[in-house]
């Protein structure tokens, strides 16, 4: 039993989880920004789409590091089944189960997004909207399951993320969200 190695696994497991939350938050912001059809964050529209894709793929990469390192970690007591089927965990099964759900949704969303031009925009969009469930579930998992989940620094980070995504969703629901919405509406009146 190599305790330094175990410590390292545990640190990597938690650290990659925190990074994943931040990247998932950025991914949602970029996704909504792209959907607005506007050149947001100082980038042209096509770049917003590409950065959204790349940030999303990086968030999946960090989530994979997160689950694999905790799988190898003896304290977390993860089993392979916990990657795919929620609420069977040996330790905090409810909060772990939320992580499992978020992971499954992330995998499905990523696969369908990469195949978007083959499966068509309707199917892509129907699946992609699962991100609005996946993101809050992943944040709840982090707060509930994490060793640091209820420490002030993490809660401050979580509040920032929730405010950012909440604000973006409020903008998404606003009637002038889409560029040219104004002129297009006037014309059909």
């Amino acid at each position, binding site marked *: 039993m190599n305790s330094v190695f175990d410590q390292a696994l545990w640190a990597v497991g938690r650290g990659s989880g925190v990074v994943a939350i931040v990247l998932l938050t950025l991914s949602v912001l970029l996704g909504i920004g792209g959907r607005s*059809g506007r050149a947001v964050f100082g980038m042209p*529209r*096509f770049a917003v*789409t*590409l950065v959204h894709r790349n940030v999303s793929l990086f968030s999946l990469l960090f989530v994979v590091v997160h689950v694999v390192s905790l799988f190898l970690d003896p304290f977390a007591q993860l089993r392979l089944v916990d990657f795919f089927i929620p609420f069977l965990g040996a330790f905090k099964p409810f909060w772990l189960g939320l992580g499992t759900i978020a992971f499954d949704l992330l995998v499905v969303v990523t696969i369908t997004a990469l195949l978007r031009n083959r499966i068509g925009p309707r199917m892509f969009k129907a699946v992609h909207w699962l991100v609005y469930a996946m993101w809050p579930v992943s944040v709840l998992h982090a707060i509930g399951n994490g060793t640091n989940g209820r420490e002030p620094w993490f809660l401050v980070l979580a509040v920032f993320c929730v405010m950012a995504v909440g604000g973006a969703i409020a903008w998404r629901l606003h009637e002038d969200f889409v560029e*040219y919405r104004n*002129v*297009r509406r006037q014309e059909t009146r």
Partner: protein
Amino acid sequence: MTERKVTMHIDWTRCDGRGLCVELLPELLTRDDWGYPVGRGGSEIAIPQNLEYAAQDAAALCPTQALRLHK
């Protein structure tokens, strides 16, 4: 050498005027007052050889898959 002519077709039933194609093909497309792309040749736009890659990007990145390339 045989000359291949690539054309790009805009499917107006799908186009939502998001503007990505206009950014990627500024030499060929502009936006009308409602944000939709306009090019010479209407919905069948001839693509010069030097812009083929840009046209492929535009077709691949179109959020509504409204662009199709024909050779």
